[in-house]
């Protein structure tokens, strides 16, 4: 396993930030660690890296237990946690040179990662003057510089523009497929990582609610029929009375989840009651909705 936690727990006085987390990330996979703000993602990542001490349980990274004084496994780990930071008085190149020296990476690694992250034009600018997005690129470059076997990235898309997000996604995918790098990536936006990851773990209130592999993720994309109809509230009541059990209101439309094979019947109910159907379309449930359903307790 690249990452294994057992009953990992972190408590801050009255707040249980992470509650008995058992997590297994296999070598070579891209694991998406999803959760809303405050779900316990960053706290978990801090414990994986030994930045904070667990209240209970244990962590193994690349086969070695993480405890105070651990250094050996971190030679093979690259990470970005919380906000992007750098020494403001030093240039991009100098900031990366610090990382190079501390990870014993070859001299050429700095130039390589500058090119990889498209930081060439900024290489001799001080970190103080970088935009947030470029600071994020610098932090990602720092994580990638020593060609780690495991990347632990906390919200890597923060502050990046849409093109930057796609670029980083492609980069992570290629690191995983071409170099066998394990990627553990957290996000609070499912769509941002849904098409990147091999597996996803959904955290909520310190607990791992659900783990899904790629096939299961696809299966969760539920089919529904979206109906544009006059008087949607009345229409929802009519459909419920007619035995359609899963009807949801979405703005001025209805989403009917159990309409497969019953579309003509549904249309008859509505038209028969004198309502006007303006639109009728079959659609997938967005994964985001599944995530919200899980973490908000929606039906």
């Amino acid at each position, binding site marked *: 396993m690249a990452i294994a936690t057992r009953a990992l727990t972190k408590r801050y006085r009255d707040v249980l930030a992470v509650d008995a987390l058992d997590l297994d990330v296999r070598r070579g996979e891209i694991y998406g660690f999803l959760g809303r703000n405050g779900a316990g993602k960053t706290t978990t990542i*801090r414990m994986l*890296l*030994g*930045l*904070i*001490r667990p209240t209970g349980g244990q962590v193994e990274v690349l086969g070695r237990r993480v405890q*105070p*004084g651990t*250094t*050996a496994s*971190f*030679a093979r*780990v690259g*990470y970005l*946690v*919380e*906000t992007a*930071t*750098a*020494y*403001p*008085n*030093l240039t991009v190149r*100098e900031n990366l*040179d*610090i*990382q190079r*020296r*501390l*990870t*014993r990476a070859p001299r050429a690694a700095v130039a390589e990662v500058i090119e990889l992250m498209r930081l060439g034009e900024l290489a001799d600018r*001080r970190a103080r003057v970088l935009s947030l997005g470029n600071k994020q690129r610098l932090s990602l470059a*720092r994580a990638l510089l020593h060609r780690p076997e495991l990347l632990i990235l906390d919200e890597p898309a923060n502050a990046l523009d849409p093109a930057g997000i796609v670029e980083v996604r492609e980069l992570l995918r290629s690191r995983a497929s071409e170099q066998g790098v394990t990627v553990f990536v957290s996000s609070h936006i499912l769509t941002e990582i849904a098409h990147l990851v091999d597996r996803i773990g959904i955290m909520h209130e310190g607990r791992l609610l659900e783990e899904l592999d790629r096939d299961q993720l696809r299966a969760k994309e539920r089919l529904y029929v979206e109906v544009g109809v006059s008087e949607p509230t009345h229409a929802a009541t009519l459909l419920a009375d007619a035995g359609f059990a899963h009807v949801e209101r979405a703005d001025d439309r209805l989403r009917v989840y159990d309409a497969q094979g019953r579309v003509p019947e549904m249309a008859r109910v509505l038209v028969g009651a004198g309502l006007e159907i303006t639109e009728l379309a079959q659609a997938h449930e967005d994964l985001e909705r599944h995530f919200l359903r899980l973490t908000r307790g929606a039906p």
Partner: protein
Amino acid sequence: MFARALATEFLKLRRSKVTWFTFAALSIGPLAIALMMWIVREPGRAAQLGLLGTKANLSGLTATWPAYFSMLTLMVGIGGMLLLSFIVAYIFGREYTEGTAKNLLALPVGRHWFVLAKLVVAAVWWAVLVVAVLAEALVLGAALALPGFSATLAVRAVHDALLAAAIAYLLAPVVAWIAMLGRGYLPPLGFALAMLALGNVFSHTGWATWFPWSIVPLYIGAIGQRVTTLAPSSLVVVALTFLAGIAATIAQLRWADNAQ
């Protein structure tokens, strides 16, 4: 690993304005003392230039090398101790203020090496600063052609200033620990000021030779009755404070939660 950590710690000072600020701050000291000496010696010309000759005369100063050296030692001992606290607060506290501490914590380099490397950087910075300021003071004193110079006096004065600077350095790891505990610049600076004030209080209670922050002021004559040699107990107290400070700083970085 220590060499790597040390090299990166020196690299972090590149283009830092704080290094120049500390040199400027401490080098103003000998200039101010030399100016006072000149005003005392030539009150008429000082008054013509609008300088406060009367006040300088009233302070009971004499424009001699012994008086000049005495003030210089006070400046290095008290002002320097505060300035060194500022240096240590910067070296250690900046990692939290700039948010970079987390980048040091999951590396193939033991965290204790960063503490030791930072303390070495502080030692080098402090030593260069003190030696430069003493050289500046000797040049200024010579330029003023103050009376009463002797080689013995100069050696004694430099010895006192260097010893005061060394003792001040031995207290610095505690300031480093406070910087890590407080995660920034302000707590260690507040701590240093509070310790100096407490040192003054202890000087009146007979505990001065036992309280670490009273020992430098006592030795240079800033508080209480000036002592000419340090009591062995004082040296033990200072040495223990140094070791305890290092141990506490390493323990803080190794065991405490280091989230920002």
